[in-house]
């Protein structure tokens, strides 16, 4: 994820190089809107939310599951329980309130999540690879991701684009997408059949921005990072299921302001961005 390429001088405003990782964080941050209540997961969402607050969404309400409501961190929190998330807030809730009351109460507009695996219906896996009882790779677990995917009005997923991550069916559905597990565990059903509202709105990767077809609820490519040289063929190759690229448009490159804020204000140490 440390690709650095010279940005083509198309618009005249991007005479600098930037990475696919940066484009991913910036593209996802652009999907956040001012005034929205955004429940931010740990990892890159903390970076993207920080950037949005400093650019187009100054009054976005940043919420973190452990402790923070309407957070305005002066320094990048490195987890959702960090003191940096609490500084200059007007209320210090716990997970009982954030998750038990606000999320479960339908008061969260956007869930902003990372994950290890995503499938064509936007189901997320952050639990394990392989068999659940003897996994080849065991991850940290859901944290709040499962709740957020079930209960937010929409979710935005941010994840590196690799064939082993973009799979036809995730090994374990930690967080529900459009077509998820039936109660008996034996089949996949549409989330509304279980009475779930919301659903994945976009998957933002290191190659592009994917959305979900309104009829099939399968993932398609909405934007690709043409400016970074990413091709639709590369996306197809890095995706473990058939993906519709017919609607793909080139992504607008980062502005100088976005890049500068990201590099010097949002994550100057490169804790997540690993400069």
């Amino acid at each position, binding site marked *: 994820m440390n690709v650095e390429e010279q940005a083509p001088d198309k618009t005249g405003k991007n005479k600098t190089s930037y990475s696919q990782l940066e484009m991913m964080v910036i593209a996802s941050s652009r999907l956040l809107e001012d005034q929205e209540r955004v429940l931010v997961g*740990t*990892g890159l969402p903390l970076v993207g939310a920080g950037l949005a607050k400093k650019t187009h969404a100054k009054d976005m309400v940043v919420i973190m*599951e*452990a*402790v923070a409501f309407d957070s305005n961190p*002066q*320094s990048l929190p*490195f*987890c*959702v*329980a*960090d*003191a*940096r998330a*609490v*500084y200059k807030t007007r209320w*210090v809730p*716990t*997970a*009982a309130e954030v*998750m*038990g009351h606000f*999320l*479960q109460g339908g008061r969260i507009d956007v869930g902003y999540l990372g994950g290890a695996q995503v499938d064509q219906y936007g189901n997320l896996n952050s*639990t394990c690879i392989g068999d*659940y*009882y*003897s*996994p080849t790779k*065991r991850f*940290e*677990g*859901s*944290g*709040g*991701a*499962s*709740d957020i995917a*079930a*209960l937010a009005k929409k979710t935005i997923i941010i994840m590196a684009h690799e064939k082993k991550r973009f799979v036809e069916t995730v090994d*374990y*559905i*930690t*967080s*529900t997408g459009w077509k*998820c*597990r039936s*109660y*008996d*565990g034996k089949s996949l*059903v549409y*989330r509304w059949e*279980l*009475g*779930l509202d919301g659903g994945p709105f976009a998957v933002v990767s290191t190659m592009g921005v994917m959305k979900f077809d309104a009829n099939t609820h399968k993932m398609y490519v909405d934007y690709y990072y043409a400016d970074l040289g990413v091709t639709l063929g590369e996306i197809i190759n890095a995706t473990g299921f058939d993906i519709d690229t017919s609607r793909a448009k080139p992504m607008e490159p980062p502005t100088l302001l976005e890049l500068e804020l990201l590099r010097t204000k949002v994550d100057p*140490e*490169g*804790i*997540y961005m*690993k400069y």
Partner: protein
Amino acid sequence: MSGSNKKILLEQVADYVKDGDRVWTGGWTVVRKPMAMVYEVIKKRKKNLHLVGNPGGPETDLLIGAGCVIKTETNYIGHEVFGHPYNFRRKMEDEKHQGELFHDDWTVATGALRIMAGAMNIPFIPTRSLKGSDIINPSLDGFQALRGSDDKVPKKKVVLMEDPFWEGDTVALIPALKPDVCLIHAQEAGDDGTVSITGGAFLDYYAAVASGITIVSAERIVPREALEQTAESNVIPGEVVNAVLEVPNGAHPTALHRFYDNDPWWFKEYLEASKDEQRMEEWLEKWVYSMDHFSDYLEKIGFKRLQKLRANPVYGYNPDIKRRLDKLGGVT
């Protein structure tokens, strides 16, 4: 309980923790974890613990790595951005450790609701979460083998039910969490057990009430009268606290609001060591088993390093600390 002075010594903590107990560790992942007490529990070689803290951080990976744990029931085990929980992973992934650790997966919302139900002493609570997730897939239940036979484990993981009162939605009933012991580290506690926490109490109040026994270590133990001044923001009443102990830096290497930040050097060394069973054992010898007292551990960490971690009291954290492990220099 409220009239007495409840001060104990760190050496006595393990007397309250019995082999096989369900243990709640307070704090949140890498923040305000009761590390000094956890080191003590490890030193006393407790066995078959059933960890129910939600979520788990380095204290959970450490207890697993030290062989103290047979069951974990939580939404997360890890060190956040610092790195992965290698001891937990090894138990789950390696053929030769099969069956040594039963792990039941949950979520943050349901972890909160379950410990709230425990505090309310109600056997279960409904939730709108979990639907559609493999977390309630009946064929993927990490405690399946224990249900019905182990009385520390609920007989079922979940029961689906139609709401008979309003619109008839299907909700998931989930069992209360009932810890036997709760270990919490706080900024301040009264000698009567009253606990003051800033920067986020997380689920510690609920856990203290839900648990059979609650032990609180704090940076400072103060006369109970001092806490009358902050009554509105005190978070745990002395009534549910069985013992308190003063342990400065007692949450090291995790962060404590207004007192100190995370110790990146600790995480760097621990993460390296925990990748390998032999090196993990050496790490435990070096940092836990060989230490007579927690103050020896702090002495070994060193004054300079502890100074580097100090929080700015206005911010609540240390604005100058470096947090990126791959570019971390030495303590200067």
